[in-house]
């Protein structure tokens, strides 16, 4: 490709960060790629791959105090090297030629100004428009990004818009100055699938209409397949593979790309074990392992039954008024022994509240949770203690669910101590060590603190903590959602192995339809606090009955599904 076809060319970019006096971490180890004119380039990688550092380097936003850029690095734009352009010049470029969309629209918009003002300010600053021109142009832009009633929304504050609309406003602001390059840093990661679909379509349409170049940074290969012309796969600061998107997905050359594609739970198949990165880095692309059948049968013994569960949140308005939010309304389902019930829904559907209410971490407002013929919701706190052993929970964020001041040994022995498991401390420690080994962590981790582990390892510790009590029911509340895809596959494999070994029943709560489809024996779809549809996983994906389920399924990014 000749230089003229590329809007931007990154050559041999090396960036290191100085953490303290002794430690220097190399984030990018000689990265080179081009962004052609009028195309969408996806930069894909897991956390720590250096994808965000690359985009910051392009924009000249690397932290000056501790970022070191090697002298041989070059970022060429219109014949000049951005790394050697003065800041004042870069600032002008950032407003005019480059624009950026961030992951969290809520925190990128200023909450005390109306969206119209915020877009108008950009226009007046960079385009020299007067107030009236800016307003007219802002309304045009809001219309272009698909905000309904742009005249009225002009005066709306960010909190009055939904997450998807906020992201649209961010996009409107980004394209206000007609940039040549739009950098989108995980713009849909914080959004629900249905909204994600809309945003992807919007950016795709804008790119074609305006002839932009888009650099789309993401960890999600499925999204990439939908939008990108070219793909750059990064890992540990190195470009592993780059090329035409269709070509890369159809015939990945690099083992790592291969692994990334395979370790996402597929929609059309269900291997017993998901391939993990190590499988690929050790050998070539393996064929999928044995298939597994999922589903429930009438003969399954019911471990836990939820009947008509209700949970309301009451907010007081004014002096006497109150508003009742029905977070969970009349939810009923049964959990068969040794099987997984998948609870799926978008944010605000009440799926997590169901899990927390069953655990009595929230007080229920109605309904029953039957376990061994007893209604757990009626038990006194003292009587409940015995049942806490049998129902355990694993939370979403492994960074928040472990007490940072406890060593792993304490985290694991505490539940046993509270429930009188094990004769003495030495025996409990031995059991903790055995469990740690079972979830795949070295025994010496007992003396370490949570901050010394990666996200996936922490989630393993959380699983081990739940297992100390040998529960019959394990509630996994978005337990793999915060993990990188490759780690997600490992944790899912671990959960499956543990289920086979201990015969536990899982209530698997997730917003990720692909994971739910792969992992559940029965799927419960929730929306607005109520159950929309309950069915077998294969059945629901092949033949969804309710319109909401159909809409949900249609929004799954299918960039990877091979026909």
């Amino acid at each position, binding site marked *: 490709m000749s230089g003229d076809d590329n809007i931007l060319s990154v050559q041999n970019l090396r960036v290191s960060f100085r953490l*303290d006096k002794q*430690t220097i971490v190399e984030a990018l180890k000689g990265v080179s790629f081009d962004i052609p004119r009028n195309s969408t380039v996806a930069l894909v990688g897991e956390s720590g791959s250096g994808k965000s550092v690359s985009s910051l380097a392009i924009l000249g936003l690397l932290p000056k105090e501790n970022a070191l850029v090697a002298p041989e690095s070059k970022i060429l734009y219109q014949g000049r090297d951005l790394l050697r352009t003065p800041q004042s010049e870069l600032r002008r470029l950032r407003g005019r030629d480059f624009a950026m969309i961030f992951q969290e629209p809520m925190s990128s918009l200023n909450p005390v100004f109306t969206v119209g003002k915020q877009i108008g300010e950009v226009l007046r600053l960079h385009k020299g428009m007067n107030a009236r021109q800016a307003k007219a142009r802002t309304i045009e832009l809001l219309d272009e990004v698909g905000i309904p009633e742009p005249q009225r929304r002009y005066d709306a504050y960010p909190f009055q818009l939904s997450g998807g609309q906020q992201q649209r406003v961010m996009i409107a602001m980004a394209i206000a100055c007609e940039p040549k390059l739009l950098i989108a840093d995980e713009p849909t990661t914080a959004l629900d699938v249905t909204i994600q679909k809309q945003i992807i379509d919007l950016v795709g349409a804008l790119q074609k209409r305006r002839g932009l170049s888009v650099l789309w940074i993401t960890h999600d290969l499925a999204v990439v397949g939908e939008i990108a012309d070219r793909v750059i796969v990064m890992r540990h600061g190195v470009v592993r593979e780059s090329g035409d998107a269709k070509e890369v997905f159809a015939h990945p050359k690099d083992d790592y790309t291969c692994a990334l594609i395979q370790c996402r739970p597929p929609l059309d198949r269900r291997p017993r074990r998901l391939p993990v990165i190590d499988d690929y880095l050790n050998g070539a692309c393996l064929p999928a392992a044995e298939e597994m059948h999922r589903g429930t049968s009438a003969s399954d013994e019911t471990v836990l039954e939820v009947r008509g569960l209700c949970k309301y949140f009451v907010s007081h308005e004014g002096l006497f008024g109150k508003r009742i939010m029905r977070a969970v309304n009349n939810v009923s389902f049964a959990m068969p022994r040794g099987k997984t019930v998948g609870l799926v829904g978008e944010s605000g559907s009440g799926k997590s509240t169901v899990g*927390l209410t069953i*655990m009595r*971490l929230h007080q229920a407002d109605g309904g029953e949770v039957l376990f061994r013929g007893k209604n757990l919701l009626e038990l006194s706190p003292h009587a409940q*203690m015995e049942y*806490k*052993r049998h129902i*355990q*929970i694993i*939370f*979403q*964020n492994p*960074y*928040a*669910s*472990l*007490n*940072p*001041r406890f*060593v792993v040994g304490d985290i694991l022995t*505490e*539940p046993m101590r*509270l*429930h009188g498991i094990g004769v003495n401390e030495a025996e409990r420690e031995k059991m903790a060590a055995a469990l740690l080994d079972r979830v795949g962590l070295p025994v010496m981790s007992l*003396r*370490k*603190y949570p*901050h*010394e582990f990666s996200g996936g390892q922490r989630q393993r510790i*959380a699983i081990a*903590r739940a297992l*100390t*009590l040998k529960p019959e029911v394990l509630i996994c509340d978005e337990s793999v959602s915060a993990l990188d895809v490759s780690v997600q596959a490992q944790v899912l494999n671990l959960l499956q192995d543990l289920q086979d070994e201990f015969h536990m029943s899982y209530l698997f709560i997730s917003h990720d339809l692909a994971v739910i489809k792969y992992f559940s024996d029965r799927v419960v779809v929730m929306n607005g606090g109520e159950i929309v549809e309950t069915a077998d996983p294969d059945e629901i994906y092949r033949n969804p009955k309710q319109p909401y389920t159909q809409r949900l399924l249609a929004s799954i990014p299918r960039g990877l599904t091979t026909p």
Partner: protein
Amino acid sequence: MSAASQSAGLWQLAWRRLIADRVAVVSMLVVGLFLLLMIASGLNLIAANWSEEVAVGYAPPSFVGAAKKAAANSPRQADNSPDAYPGTVKDPLATEIAELRRQLDGGVTTSSEADLELGDIKVVDPLAKEMAEILGTTTVAAHHELADTLPFGADKWGRDVIQKTIKGSETSIFVGLTAALLATVIGTVLGAFAGYYGGRIDDFFNWFYNVFTAIPYMLLILAIAAVLNQRGVTAVVLILGLTGWTGIYRLVRAEYMKHKSREYVQAADAIGASNRRRMFVHIFPNISHVSLVQLSVNAVGFIKSEVILSFLGFGVPVDKVSWGSMLNEAQNELILGYWWQLAAATLAMALLVTAFSMFTDALRDALDPKIK
């Protein structure tokens, strides 16, 4: 940082960050020095004789020189009676004894029968024993001539200002630290209950807090002082401790409100940890940096408050010395131009308070649990 070595907990990491900070180390050394001074003076190793008259009244600092000597000495010379100056102890019978001795030595002739007995007669001072006792307990200085200048001058009664300052640090730092500890304990416990339980309990504590903060600070201090009806270090500690917990209460309450819904606390609930256990075993170590920083912020504030209390006359009693009482004395001296007592107390306090504040800042930076 080596991850392979024995695992460093968050406290250890914070400590490493703290000692990597040059400002923190210097301020810690200064605060440590003051603490050593305080302990040493508490054990009477130094400044034990602070209440001795070692110099003439208002003896100026040595570096100022004896230029003011005459002026400083004048009030003493004007009044020559020995009782005015407890330092110069004189035997009230001394003149009579001396007269008797003189007569004996002088070979005064008397009658023959008297001669016989007179050979054994010695003039005995009937007060000699008592005098020896008095002289023994009073200082060496009493035997010597009083100094005209001292390294940093003397106060009205000729007491060394440096020794007074050191002795004063004992009271001031002790009051500051214990009152801060008391306030932190009250504030932390109330804040923990209010923030953790919320609802009615929170309302009750908030009501209590609001009543406390609604009363003007000085009025509250006067009221508590009146109720305690005593003066002394304990009273000052109680006054400051009982009025100073409100700020910590609010901060700790907010932290507990934030932490009680964190996932690790929910996880503790899920495994069956009791409320008390969640409050103090799980949450407290995670918010204790707030209490610790507040402790040192309050210690600084209370050292200053003690000065104000003593200045207002609610502070330590007259037989003790604190920086506050020194400043209180200094307000009269200043009119006469005797600035050294004021300077000494101010300097010591400024040094300690500045070092302590910088240490607090560094502590807050080091404890900031932003690391994952």
